[in-house]
């Protein structure tokens, strides 16, 4: 039992770490989709955030500037997407995919000179685990939840604040209206273009931060393609958590946990590792099926998702 609990603790600690970049990216994508724009460029924005965060962190030695650079880089990527899809009303799928391709190339290009470089101690020490007194003493979940690095804690706060913002504020209501029924929102005097721009940029910044977490905290040494497809998992996660920021915490840590659990179980179980690799996607399909069976409005995609808004079409 003792041994089991200690293994469980290890799994949970790493699951939350693995889930944190997914959480940021998922929250970002929730904002973009809640205003009606399906941004498939998450992977690209994450990579842009990862490379810019790393390179600024490396050259300045400042963790704060590194994080800010990651946020800014993700937002820049999102700006391209926003301009294409809002102002030019280009196809969202194509624009998002090209953003992913662009971001991947951008990070390889900028990262060429960074390969093999490692971050200085001044950054690594800031991102070490910080114990929260009392709370971290709770068995099993204590160390998992409350003995983590500062960005993991930031993730908790950002998720909760996002939830409050979406469901408990006037602006949140407005932004949901933009995604559900832009015609009605327009009639009510909501500035649709502004709302879309702001939240897509915010979403990009979060995706950039998710990428930055990977290169600044998870593996503080530059390697190309550091995201390894996590941007795509985030896109699936948005559906899995039914566009809900609160649920996104559970979802992100669960998906993160699946990859970790596979590693711990593989030598003790007959289940091949590839099954665990499939689970996040299987779970997403399962949720999709459940949503369409239950037809509950709360859990559906924003109605105007993927459709450009023309005022004259009303």
């Amino acid at each position, binding site marked *: 039992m003792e041994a089991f609990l200690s*293994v469980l603790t*290890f799994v949970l600690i*790493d699951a939350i770490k*693995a889930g944190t970049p997914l959480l940021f990216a998922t929250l970002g994508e929730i904002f973009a989709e809640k205003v009606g724009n399906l941004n498939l460029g998450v992977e690209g924005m994450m990579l842009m955030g990862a490379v810019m965060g790393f390179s600024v962190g490396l050259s300045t030695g400042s963790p704060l500037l590194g994080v800010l650079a990651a946020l800014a880089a993700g937002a820049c990527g999102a700006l391209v997407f926003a301009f294409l899809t809002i102002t030019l009303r280009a196809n969202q799928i194509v624009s998002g995919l090209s953003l992913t391709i662009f971001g991947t190339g951008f990070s*390889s290009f900028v*990262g*060429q000179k960074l*390969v*093999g*470089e*490692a971050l200085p101690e001044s950054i690594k020490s800031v991102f070490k685990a910080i114990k929260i007194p009392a709370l971290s003493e709770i068995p099993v979940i204590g160390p998992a939840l409350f003995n983590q690095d500062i960005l993991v804690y930031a993730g908790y706060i950002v998720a909760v604040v996002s939830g409050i913002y979406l469901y408990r504020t006037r602006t949140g209501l407005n932004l949901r209206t933009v995604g559900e029924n832009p015609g009605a929102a327009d009639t009510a005097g909501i500035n649709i273009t502004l709302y879309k721009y702001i939240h897509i940029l915010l979403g990009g910044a979060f995706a950039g931060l998710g990428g930055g977490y*990977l290169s600044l905290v*998870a*593996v*503080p*040494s530059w*390697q*190309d*393609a*550091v995201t*390894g497809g*996590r941007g795509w998992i985030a896109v699936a996660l948005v559906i899995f958590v039914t566009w809900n920021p609160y649920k996104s915490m559970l979802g992100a840590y669960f998906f993160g946990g699946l*990859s*970790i659990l596979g*590693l*711990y179980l*593989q*030598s003790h179980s007959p289940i*091949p*590792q*590839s099954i665990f*690799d499939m689970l996040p996607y299987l779970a997403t399909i399962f949720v999709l099926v459940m949503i369409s069976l239950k037809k509950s409005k709360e859990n559906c995609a924003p109605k105007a998702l993927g459709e450009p808004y023309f005022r004259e079409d009303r």
Partner: protein
Amino acid sequence: MKKLLALMLAVAMISAALLSGCGAGSSGDDSAASTGAKAVKAGFIYIGPIGDGGYTYAHDQGRLFLEKELGAKGVTTTFLENVAEDASSEKAMKDLIDQGCNVIFATSFGYMEYVDRVAKEYPDVKFFHCSGYLSNDTNFVNYFGRIEQTRYLSGIAAALKSKSGKIGYVAAKQIPEVIRGINSFTLGVQSVSPTATVNVKWTDTWYDPTLEKNAATALLNDGCDVIAQHQDTTGPQIAAEEKNAFAIGYNSDSSKAAPKAYITAPIWNWGVYYVDQVQKILDGTWKAENYWGGLKEGVVDLAPITENAAPGTKETVEAIKAKILDGSFNVFAGPIKDQTGAVRVAEGAVMSDEDQLSCKWFVQGVNGKIDK
């Protein structure tokens, strides 16, 4: 009509520019290729980005070495990176040939059948394919290196360092190449501490820094205190560094990423082979021969052992290395038992190359499993 034509031209131009610009790099003096029939222009196709700091990086270092050594003799090189192991590799090769390449190095296993096909189509071009098994008698050969020899040596270094007797091994895919590496590493470990175990975790990917790190962390949490890897990133070494443990790298000297953990790494020196082959082409003495070089040929080596190693490691490793070099010791010499304890290679016998290339079982001392 005019407009349509202009549009079509524009599209054609843009796509041509994109295609040729996409991941292509060229360096050296291109004009040399056209000056004489003897000039060699070598084209390389890579599975990953040259900036992976691992497998493709090592091949590209080989290319640069070739350019440095033989550039004065009119040898130029060019490369295409991120070439998938499908029909696009065939197109990549043809593109390189169109650009004047008369020597092609295809550096990943999955290109094999496409190389075979293109080699028949272009009998005047010489094709070199890394890690495959197909070849012909005229213009298509395969090449690889006995990295197992240096993995064995790195196993010695790991075992000398380990206090817990549990060594972790983060492994990519369940194919003979990787299994062979784990076996030779384990034999190296057991040559100095017979009771030590090598604990294997599969990641199912060659390249994912974070996942590789997680796998290493799982091993460290399980009590391992030295981590080895058959992966293309430094993730496992960083995990070891964070947990105050030690690590054996792979592919290239990676002491920068984990300075306090990194002990040594089995590394590739592809440049040795590339220069040798191209020199033979220049001399007119080249023959279509497959190549599986080892320490002796210089195509594989062990990176310099750092101060993180246990005292005396260098001497022990050097002694065995000398024996491998003079041929008096073979890594896969019997007796070798498998995980069940059954003798697979009898005393006095040596595992054949064929058996090594198709190896699908672990030696005794490996704690891990191969999915059937």
